């Protein structure tokens, strides 16, 4: 490893612009003649739009246009799509309710747009929006999954009778039932996985600019995957053919999944820009983020786990109701199915698993992938079951896990996934040592003597990342391939531009991707730049989510690098009058092995472009590209253990220690990996203790600002003790598994397991607010 190569803790190249205020986010961009959009949104969870009167608004100062849902439908802008087709157990396709970018007839959640005001300033647009009179006829609404599937419940979509999207199954029900029937012990658990608001700190924003002469659109947008945005806007939403649409995602202020999706606001901005003949900018505020950014989680689950007399798991049966909100968002259908139920084996040998997932429409904000996406739900369920089982079977929770760990790889689970490698005992050992698990009983007794309730909670998570092998996901209903692209452009003076289809919105790609180049060529990372986030610069790519950028995106760069190096070696060999096979790359030089003959990399680059002395038949230039399609998911795994105290008087939780032992395979930059884990852990802790997007029974959101939705703050969370155990991923040449979601996947169960240990009662839902914990302590 060089000082800037793989494994080095290199400080980030991109940081200087962020710490000096020179980052360039969408809202920082101004275009000549730019107008500003303000959306008129439904205050009702369910209503008919009977009429929109914009006459008064159109007379107000600075108003350019008021555009409505009917107009966008009339202009044949396509309805929003869901990109993963799921088939119900009866063979029928999932039931898609139509979702126009602005509602012409019916609104189905609070915040759904019905019209937009375009004006000379943001304030003037908002002033005028208040003068637009929308006549609604309110309809009965439903927000809760169980209420939504009852007979007589308000119906959202004519396409989906009973508000059911799908009833999907996986696994062998007969085998799972048989295991439960013959079990020595059956552990039953009902859990709710609370609905969350992603809350990237940068609100979503879009600037659309239509060039009528070229019939060409440019869209600046807060996206995790600008290429997919262009594809969908072009192929499904009829905005413009791909070559007439450029999508740019500049600096993006966090995503966590919520900026994967293509939202109505981007569609409307593009359409409106052509309508008004001027650039249109929209920047959401925080309340709009709460109302319209796709939410995460919202599962209600009943599960039964069967154990034999030796405490070995022999079967698992799960039934989950997933609340999708009012419409099926872009990847929503896959989250509670292929990203959730396929991980229900956890780290354990479970011979029989059956899961049924019922997707339900409600009059709430659409729900889609949020950091972890399905895998936190699976991990939380399994790890709460294991803890509950340990209590019921009266065995040590860590020991029960060890009894059931998968230790032989590859391991085929009964729910599709084939785990390639791992060492679950190693991460459990590391975490137990780090937290002094053996000494806990003493610490608990001491705390008790001081009147405090202390608890410890273990969570052994596994996730499927590196999303994803295209053929496999295609066979399961995905609408796109999930490979990644890369291009390596060597300039004539030897500096290097790496173009990637993945996208950084905080992950540090501008540093880690350079480290691979530095590792291979021995050049300083200052000689390398990473280009991403612009469809005019990068040919195509799939973006960043599912902890895929290193495992898939960086592997694509490696493939392109190998091609480039191969050509460069030929050039070097020709120049050095040596055999290509004898050329080695060391410290920025191409050397003839075992001699002192060498040519510096910049000279090789220059030779490629002067083309004065290239091998016969070789094309000039030094630029190579590659597409990499992974052969399997990757399987990061690890153990989190948390120790905490509960204040019996208030129900408030205080952390004593939180340790994480992860196996991410090879680490490119441990500093950045640790940062990813810290952030994920706090999102997991946030879900466990604080966060909950709540609707009342009529679909009115109760938590639409930071005044009501509790975001983790610095004094809510501890510092963390991290460590790594390593089994290299055999599925990609760098041995990378991915680290972006682990913390959010594994942390919640550790926290709830610890609180329930502290208070001596197992039945506790997330978020474990002080009120809820206090009531649980004092419940009869």
């Amino acid at each position, binding site marked *: 490893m060089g000082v800037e190569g793989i494994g080095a803790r290199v400080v*980030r190249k991109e*940081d200087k612009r*962020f*710490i000096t205020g020179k980052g360039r986010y969408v809202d920082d961009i101004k275009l000549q003649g730019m107008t500003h959009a303000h959306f008129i949104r439904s205050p009702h969870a369910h209503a008919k739009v009977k009429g929109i009167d914009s006459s008064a608004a159109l007379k107000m100062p600075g108003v350019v246009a008021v555009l409505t849902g009917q107009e966008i439908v009339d202009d044949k802008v396509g309805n929003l799509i869901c990109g993963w087709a799921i088939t119900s157990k009866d063979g029928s396709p999932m039931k898609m309710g139509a979702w126009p970018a602005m509602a012409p007839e019916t609104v189905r959640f609070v915040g759904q747009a019905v019209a937009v005001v375009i004006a000379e300033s943001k304030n003037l647009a908002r002033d005028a929006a208040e003068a637009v009179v929308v006549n609604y006829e309110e309809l009965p609404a439903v927000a809760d999954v169980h209420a939504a599937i009852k007979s007589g419940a308000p119906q959202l979509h004519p396409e989906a009778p009973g508000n059911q999207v799908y009833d999907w199954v996986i696994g062998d029900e007969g085998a799972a039932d048989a295991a439960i029937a013959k079990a020595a012990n059956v552990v039953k658990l009902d859990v709710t996985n609370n609905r969350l608001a992603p809350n*990237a700190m940068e609100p979503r924003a879009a600037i659309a600019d239509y060039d009528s002469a070229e019939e060409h659109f440019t869209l600046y947008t807060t996206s995790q995957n600008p290429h997919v945005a262009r594809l969908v806007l072009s192929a499904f939403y009829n905005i413009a053919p791909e070559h007439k649409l450029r999508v740019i995602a500049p600096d993006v202020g966090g995503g*966590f999944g919520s900026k994967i999706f293509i939202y109505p606001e981007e569609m409307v901005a593009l359409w409106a820009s052509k309508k008004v003949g001027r650039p249109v900018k929209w920047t959401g505020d925080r309340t709009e983020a709460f109302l319209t950014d796709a939410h995460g989680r919202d599962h209600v689950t009943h599960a039964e786990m069967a154990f034999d007399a030796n405490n070995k798991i022999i079967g698992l049966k799960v039934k989950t109701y997933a609340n999708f909100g009012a419409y099926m968002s872009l990847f929503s259908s896959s989250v509670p199915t292929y990203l959730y139920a396929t991980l229900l084996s956890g780290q354990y040998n479970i011979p029989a698993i059956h899961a049924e997932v019922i997707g339900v429409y409600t009059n709430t904000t659409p729900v889609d992938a949020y950091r972890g996406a399905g895998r936190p739900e699976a991990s939380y369920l399994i790890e709460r079951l294991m803890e509950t089982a340990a209590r019921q079977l009266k065995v040590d929770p860590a020991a029960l896990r060890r009894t059931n760990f998968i230790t032989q790889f590859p391991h085929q689970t009964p729910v599709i996934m084939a785990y390639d490698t791992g060492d679950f005992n190693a991460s459990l050992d590391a975490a137990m040592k780090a937290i002094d698990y053996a000494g806990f009983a003493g610490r608990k007794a001491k705390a008790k003597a001081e009147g405090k309730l202390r608890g410890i909670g273990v969570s052994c998570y596994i996730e499927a990342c590196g999303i994803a092998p295209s053929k496999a996901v295609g066979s399961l209903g995905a609408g796109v391939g999930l490979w990644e692209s890369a291009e390596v452009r060597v300039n004539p003076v030897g500096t290097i531009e790496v173009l990637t289809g993945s996208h950084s919105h905080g992950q540090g790609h501008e540093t880690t991707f350079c480290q691979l180049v530095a590792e291979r060529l021995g050049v300083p990372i200052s000689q390398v730049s990473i280009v991403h986030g612009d469809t005019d610069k990068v040919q195509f790519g799939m973006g960043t989510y599912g902890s895929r950028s290193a495992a898939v995106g960086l592997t694509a760069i490696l493939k392109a690098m190998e091609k480039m190096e191969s050509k460069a070696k030929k050039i070097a060999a020709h120049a050095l009058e040596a055999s290509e096979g004898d050329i080695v790359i060391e410290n920025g030089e191409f050397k003839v092995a075992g001699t002192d003959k060498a040519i510096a990399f910049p000279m090789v680059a220059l030779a490629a472009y002067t083309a004065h002395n290239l091998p016969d038949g070789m094309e000039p230039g030094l630029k190579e590209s590659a597409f990499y399609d992974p052969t399997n998911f990757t399987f990061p795994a690890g153990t989190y253990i948390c120790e905490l105290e509960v204040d019996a008087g208030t129900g408030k939780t205080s952390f004593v220690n939180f340790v994480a032992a992860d196996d991410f395979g090879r680490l490119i930059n441990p500093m950045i990996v*640790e940062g990813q884990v810290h952030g994920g852990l706090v999102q997991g802790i946030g879900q466990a203790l604080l966060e909950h997007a709540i609707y009342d029974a009529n679909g009115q959101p109760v938590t639409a600002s930071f005044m009501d939705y509790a975001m983790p703050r610095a*004094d809510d*969370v501890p510092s*963390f003790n991290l460590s790594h155990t390593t089994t290299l991923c055999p599925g990609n040449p760098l041995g990378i598994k991915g680290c972006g979601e682990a913390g959010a996947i594994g942390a919640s169960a550790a926290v709830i397991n610890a609180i329930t240990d502290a208070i001596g009662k197992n039945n506790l839902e997330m978020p474990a607010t002080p009120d809820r914990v206090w009531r649980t302590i004092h419940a009869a």
Partner: protein
Amino acid sequence: MSTVKLTVNGKAVAVDVEDRTLLVQLLRDHLNLTGTHVGCDTSQCGACVVHMDGKAVKSCTMLVGQADGASITTIEGIAKGDELHPMQAAFRDNHGLQCGYCTPGMIMSAIDIVHRYGGQLDEATVRHELEGNICRCTGYHNIVKAVLDAAGRMKVSQAAE
């Protein structure tokens, strides 16, 4: 409309704006100082924190009229040329930022914290003092480390001056 006169990053400025203009709007929309961000509507996230007459304030919760005559320092104004402020350097060196959106507000708040405590800080104090700044990426771990690191650096650089 009123003419507001103030000093921003050492430069005198006079701008004609609507009275309802917030300080953050003046900075971003009129002075093109886009390093100061807006992350919420309820004065809680702290992405907009700047210094007014040396004190950390939320520029989203101040009318420009209230800042008339004041001296404002933003994230763009704390480095000395190419030399980063010790707090900026500490955020970079400790990986105290990811997406960078909350970072300017964090840095401006953190400088104020160190000034108030004279560098005598511990983790619990830093965490309490950062409660008006929300970060969604870092889990705060490395931000806390960066502030503690910078407190030491600022003490040294003050001693040197």
